């Protein structure tokens, strides 16, 4: 019977680790805003151009 107890304690501790992970992510604010990141990923990170005039021309085309 001792192996059942051992297995249960293993399963419980794994489950507890996940619960803790969820709790920490909640506290970190990962679930505060679930909508904006889906918008943010649409933005391109353009290389910043030093010369303004250059980039303006490309925008105005």
């Amino acid at each position, binding site marked *: 019977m001792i192996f059942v107890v051992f297995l249960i304690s293993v399963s419980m501790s794994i489950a507890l680790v996940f619960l803790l992970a969820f709790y920490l992510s909640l506290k970190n604010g990962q679930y505060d805003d679930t*909508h904006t990141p889906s918008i943010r990923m649409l933005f391109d990170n353009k290389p910043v151009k030093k010369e303004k005039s250059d980039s303006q021309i490309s925008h105005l085309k």
Partner: protein
Amino acid sequence: MATAQVVQTECFHCGQACEEVHWVNDKAFCCYGCQTVYEILAANNLCEYYQLENHPGISSRQVDEGIFAYLDKADIRQKLLTFDSKTFSKVTFQVPGIHCVSCVWLLENLQQMNRGILRSEVNFTRKSITIDFDPSAVALSKLVALLSSLGYTPQITLNTESNIVQPDALVSKLAIAGFCFGNVMLFSFPEYLGLNHSDPYLIRTFSILNFGLASLTFFYSGFGYLRSAGKSFSQKQINIDVPIAAGLLALFLRSSYDIVTTTGPGYLDSFTGLVFFLLIGRWFQSKTYETLAFDRDFKSYFPLAVQRLAYDQWVPTLIYDLKPNDSIQIRNMEIVPTDGTLINEEAFFDYSFVTGESRPALVKQGEKVYAGGRLIGQPVKLVVEKPTSQSHLTSLWNNPVFGKVNASKYKKIIDQSARVFTWIVLGIALLTAIYWQFTQPAQMWLVLTSVLMVACPCALALAAPFTYGSMMRVFGRAHFYLKNADVIERLAAVDAVVFDKTGTVTHGDKPNVAFVGHLTEKEMRAVKSLAGASTHPLSCLIAHSIKSISIDAISRFKEIPGKGIQGVIGDHFFQLGAAEFVGAPRVIDAEGSMVFVAIDNDVVGYFQVRTVVRKNIKEMISRLGKACDALLSGDVPSDADLMKKIFGTHPILMFNQTPHDKLDYIYNLQQNGKTVLMVGDGLNDSGALKQADVGITVTDNAGIFTPACDGILDGTQLDALDRFIRLAKASTSILKIAFVISFLYNAIALGFAITGNLTPLTAAILMPMSSISVVGFSSIAVNIVAKRKLKS
């Protein structure tokens, strides 16, 4: 006769039709504000803004940076900032203007515009922006001015706490309850499978583990119910939480007793499951409220600070600090914060905010200006008469109506039934206890606790949030946003609907102006110049409607009040005004006003200014039938005939109504036993909105105009108002059916409990079943009904 048509140019920034086109870099802009925003963005290399969405901009009203100077005062800073040090500060603003992808992009790239801004992050759902900045490089007032110049003016209120209540605590409670529920079910498996007696040691281990998990649920997740019940108990009241807490307590204590005395495995799976489902109900409710911010009151329309004259200098002063005889300066489009006397010669004030009359009123030197008026035109000086709290508008809002909280009826009903329920359950428990005491005294306590725990009206508690919660979501999808679920209950009971006119039945600010007759383009331009020189509302409308650039100089301009205007432009003498003024035959247009045009004393045609009624209103009114009670308008009865056509003979049409009249009218209806729904457009009927059992604001841009009311309806959806009322009625019936279902489960379970046959297995099956079936039934039924009613 031809109607003049001008090709419309859309503004590159905001997408509105341009009146006077400003050209920059081959792009058209409707106003200087839009052009400025574009120039700022172009200069900062941020034109990607325009590539993410078409016409994403908000027309920015010109702001004077001085307006925000008060934000740099130490006590105000302290209230707004969430973190403050010498080189790093953090602030969160509500920005109602956030509406699209481009907004998010621009607001998160603020650091490219000002070195002092370190980082900015937008929360789209809450329409808020959090900015980290260096206060030594950029002042808070500059930051707000920058946002404002881009068209994203933050909403700054000092009295409400800016930090929004986080649903964090609820989510972690829910997570713990879910975790415990799952694991307890797992450890109860041997018992479900009838392996109870195979290994007493193992069963004991499982029981103890279950007990540990359930204690966690009881003391962490379910404690809120116990506390709320305790609170209501100490106030000698019984609310819905009392029977729930009694049930939870009975379940937990009985199970603990079973486990400690090793007489059985207890009912811990039912217990944790119950807590889990109850919390899901709460979470669901909080989720539906999240996107709606309704905490604005009339004060948020008032300016926070004005320019006050102190020792020959204008200093920004909080309006609450104003004293009688202070001199203050009011600028164009600013709202007068307190009653005062005008020092300047004359000025126009728009009181639509207070009285509902949409035409600006002329105030002469020495006359009184009331709080709530909006200045139109040149800046003026006022002498303060009274401190803010006593003035006109505040007194309207201090009406007892606003003091009393609209006690939610449905909560009352539930609490009432909970009270009845509790007494019935207690009665049954007592009778059962007496019976068992005489027949089998040893079993008495066990049976008693079983009765108490299955009688817990948890399905009753779940039914309302789930039914109304899903109905709120359905409404939300149809652009009808409610303050909370109670509104649905009240909406279902409505038997009298009262409408406001301007902005509700009609488009408030966009009357239809058409020219009948013929004018060359040059003459059209001259008419615009002439009309533009006058402040009369009709002249303004006409000037706005002509889309060309007016540069003509006017000589010998004359305005004859009540008649018209005239002037010489080029070589011609132009007249614009009433029929008798220009010498035209008098014609009466039933649907609006007519303004005649004469050139060199020759009548060449006339402008028709008509109120534009929203689409399909007439059909909606006729579907409402007898329920439609009245139309209350703050305006003069100029379009009474048009309104008669729409409303028919039954509803009463009343004009020249002050906010007080509207409020009184609704109060009288209520005295006659009616449940009133008031549909209005905002603050000038806010009193009536609040007095009515349900007050709904109609708006064309949700999120920008949200005064204190019970719900916001998108202007395009007004024609579905009757359907929303019918849906609300349907959801009350659904709720009743859900009550019956949950009651049936309770009755069956009680039968088991009273006869002493409630095994842990029966409890484990019956209790979650009742919750799940009630939740499932109400959500599915609501969606089916909504689909059917909203489409038909």
